[in-house]
């Protein structure tokens, strides 16, 4: 697939000397969903703001659909939709007028059918004549999304779209995002919720301290760095891991009722058979076994804290 967004050595320093972006390089393919994970202050919002024209870059270049965001800002910005993290809306205007305004601001001719369709999809249709100040927090967030979609962007930035929204709305939003992807829109979302990235993204980027630490296919990332845990539950608890099982480097579970074995999913031999044989030979009686795949969260925490997870 062709590249729709290209970021080269993007740097942003503030007047106080703080370096929010330290040379970010990133290529995003048309039609993909990229999740940017990172702790607070990692530079996620600064990166998005710089691409969208809200913040000026100190150096580096960004092109959207081949258009430079500075020299050809009109063509570049016309392709971008932004759903900001903060709920920033004119409180006294109606939902319908706010969304229409966004379309007009982006220079697109009036298209009532399209706006109606967006409002219906986002369950805002019944509220179209309400003033925004009358809406709940979740509804306001939908309005932000409707505004961003009103001008038919090719690239959509969702800056923590589900921060502080309930489970139902989160699932609704995921559906909307998937539908958008099917229509060919490229989506870059930042999130704190690892499950969100895990559920939706094609690729995952991890950003911390203004640098992209890695960008990888989600499945590759999980496979490469993912580890699995096998938990063996015992009928009679043990105080320590029996010496006969030392070679397996087990951890003792809670109350001594289980033994935990960590293994590499991709290893040729996982060592499970040997382990189970050794457990039986050590005279331990099993009540149950379970396995758990390490999640993106484990990988993420490992990366950001500097461990080789």
């Amino acid at each position, binding site marked *: 697939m062709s590249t729709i967004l290209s970021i080269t050595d993007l740097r942003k320093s*503030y007047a106080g000397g703080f370096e929010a972006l330290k040379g970010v390089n990133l290529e995003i393919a048309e039609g993909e969903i990229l999740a940017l994970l990172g702790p607070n202050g990692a530079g996620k919002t600064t990166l998005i*703001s710089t691409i*969208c*024209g*809200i*913040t*000026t870059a100190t150096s580096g270049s960004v092109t959207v659909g081949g258009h430079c965001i500075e020299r050809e*800002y*009109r*063509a*570049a*910005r*016309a392709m*971008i939709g*932004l759903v*900001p993290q*903060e709920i*920033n*809306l*004119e*409180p*006294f*205007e109606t939902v319908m*007028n706010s969304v*229409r*305004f*966004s*379309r*007009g*601001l*982006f*220079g*697109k*001719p009036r298209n009532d059918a399209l706006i109606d369709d967006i409002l219906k999809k986002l369950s805002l249709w019944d509220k179209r004549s309400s003033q925004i100040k009358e809406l709940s927090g979740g509804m306001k967030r939908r309005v932000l999304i409707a*505004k961003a979609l009103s001008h038919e962007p090719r690239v959509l930035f969702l800056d923590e779209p589900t921060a502080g929204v309930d489970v139902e709305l989160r699932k609704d939003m995921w559906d909307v995002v998937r539908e958008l992807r099917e229509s060919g829109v490229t989506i870059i979302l930042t999130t704190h919720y690892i499950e969100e990235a895990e559920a939706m993204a094609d690729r995952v980027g991890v950003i911390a301290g203004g640098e992209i630490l890695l960008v990888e296919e989600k499945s590759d990332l999980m496979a490469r760095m993912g580890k699995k845990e096998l938990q063996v539950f015992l009928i009679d608890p043990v105080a320590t891991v029996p010496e006969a099982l030392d070679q397996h480097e087990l951890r003792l579970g809670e109350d001594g009722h289980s033994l935990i074995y960590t293994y590499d999913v991709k290893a040729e031999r996982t060592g499970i058979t040997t382990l189970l044989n050794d457990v039986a030979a050590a005279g331990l009686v099993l009540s149950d076994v379970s396995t758990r795949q390490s999640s993106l969260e484990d990988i993420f925490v490992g990366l950001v804290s500097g461990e080789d997870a």
Partner: protein
Amino acid sequence: MNWTAVSAIYKFEMARFFRTLAQSFLSPVLSTSLYFVVFGAAIGSRIDQVEGVSYGAFIVPGLIMLSVITQGISNASFGIYFPKFIGTVYELLSAPVNFLEIVLGYVGAAATKALFIGVVILATAHLFVDITIAHPLAMLLFLVLTCISFALLGFIIGIWAKNFEQLQLVPLLIITPLIFLGGSFYSISMLPPIWQTITLFNPVVYLISGFRWSFFGVSDVPVGFSLLAIAVFTGLCLAVIGWIFRTGWRLRS
């Protein structure tokens, strides 16, 4: 030019005005009526004609200027300050629009509102005193130019202001005194000679004088100076706004 965007901003801003139409309409009518009761009836009855015009009629151009200038500033400064305050300015900054389009939308709407108020005051004044307009086209030109130029100034104030107090500061401390001392309610020929000279450094004198000339054919300063003054002022405001958008001052971090 992205005219669709200009029109979107303009309509969005005008909608704010229409939401509070009764307020927008009633407050100038009431304040003008009060001015006429106080200045026209109470004080005016003790003052003979000023430069051949009855005092009640003489103050009409000054009254209109007073409202149009303050309305132009407050509408435009609030119009751009409010999105900064509530955060919706992100959309403006990320839209495919240039500074001229943003200014046309915001300043156009603010100037329209000020013009509306000006016309309402003129109509209200007509109920109290007889007014004949000697040069109607020139009157309209002065009125429209004043609306636009002070809306431009208001736009600059709105971008500069970091809080609501600052938003009020310039109009309150600088503009209102300049208007009151600019001959709104008197001819500068009524001042002692030294003050007649000092008052010529007040740019508002030129505006009011020119505007009054368009009504009664009499002026404190030559009408050409008045037009020049307003043109220079408008150009200055445009230059400052151009610089603001080039540098992103107080808009883009």
